[in-house]
């Protein structure tokens, strides 16, 4: 009988392919990638912390609308804060900042917190952290190779760009198509590693 494969850490981006829109659209620039990644991380963790309270103090039929309202409030609040921190960063991230509320990763978090499928520490926090770190790495990789520089999420008046290469070594990576190609390779590598280690592929 085939030995049952053990579960692996929940990896929403490379494992479950969740939250792809911001991961591809804004990860051509490290500053925007980190801002969106942080927004998703905070949104997921806040939902994970508040939903048990919502479940405790409200009837079950109100859990879903309250969860959606909480997610929308978080993303609106985060958009306002990013706009105050750096108007340029808010403009560069564009629509993706308010759309955090309906990001499929956040929606999946809502479903799980409403159904109590997974806990904050066992699924939500590791998953949010893995997504955040993956987005940071992908956006840094894309910008360094695709544009030859690294843009930091600094407020106005601070030096925000570090030059790495005088010429971009692989311009394709800066384009959305390059993002998809990179993501495809990362998913492939991740799954090969999981398979070799005998872990369950999500």
């Amino acid at each position, binding site marked *: 009988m085939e030995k049952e494969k053990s579960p692996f850490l929940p990896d929403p981006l490379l494992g479950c392919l969740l939250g792809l829109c911001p991961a591809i659209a804004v990860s051509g*620039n490290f500053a925007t990638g980190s801002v969106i990644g942080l927004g998703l991380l905070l949104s997921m963790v806040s939902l994970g912390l508040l939903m048990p309270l919502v479940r405790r103090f*409200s009837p079950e039929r109100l859990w879903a609308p309250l969860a959606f309202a909480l997610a929308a*409030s978080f993303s609106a609040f985060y958009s306002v804060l990013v706009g105050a921190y750096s108007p340029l960063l808010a403009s*560069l991230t*564009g629509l993706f900042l308010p759309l955090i509320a309906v990001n499929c990763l956040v929606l999946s978090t809502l479903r799980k917190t409403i159904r109590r499928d997974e806990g904050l520490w066992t699924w939500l926090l590791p998953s949010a952290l893995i997504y955040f770190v993956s987005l940071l790495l992908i956006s840094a990789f894309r910008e360094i190779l695709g544009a030859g*520089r690294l843009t930091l999420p600094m407020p106005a008046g601070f030096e925000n760009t570090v030059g790495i290469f005088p010429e971009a070594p692989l311009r394709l990576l800066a384009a959305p198509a390059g993002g998809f190609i990179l993501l495809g390779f990362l998913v492939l590598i991740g799954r090969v590693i999981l398979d070799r280690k005998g872990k369950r592929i999500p």
Partner: protein
Amino acid sequence: MMEPRKKEALLANLAMAAFLAAMAGLVVLVAILIDRSGQARDAALLARLSSSEQAGPARRFSDPAFAYLYPMSRGGKRSYAALANIGDRNGMVRVAAFFSPDGRLEAVHIIDSMPAGLPCGQDGWFTEFLGKGREDYPLLLRDLKKPDAVAGASESLMRTSEAFSRMSSAVIFAEAKGGER
């Protein structure tokens, strides 16, 4: 008389509605406070750059490039100023644009650019790029479509010139509204 079960449900609904309203109110309050402090900071920056002072309340516009238009005054000479974000997903610059009351672009200062080192992040780039130098900036979009006005036409040029064109139209609108008062 309402059934106790229905009454309980109604109270629960009302409590949740009040909670949601309080949460929405909190977000709106924070947004208003941040917006006001940002507006005061922007007005001070524009006054410093143009060595003038704010001559009235800022007028809000729902435009993707700029949010407020500030009436300014220097020694009795009136002008308008706005802070705008111009660019696309490859890069964005924040500029302070100054207009005469008839909507002519008088000066552009670069405030910040992301990433740094963009060609459009250099002072003087906009006037050169727009191809008009010190000449009057065309006020109408149809003038911008003439080949001589859109030398080296590109998406960036159209995006830039449209943003300035909208700011210019906003100045003309604000001036007309101001004159009505």
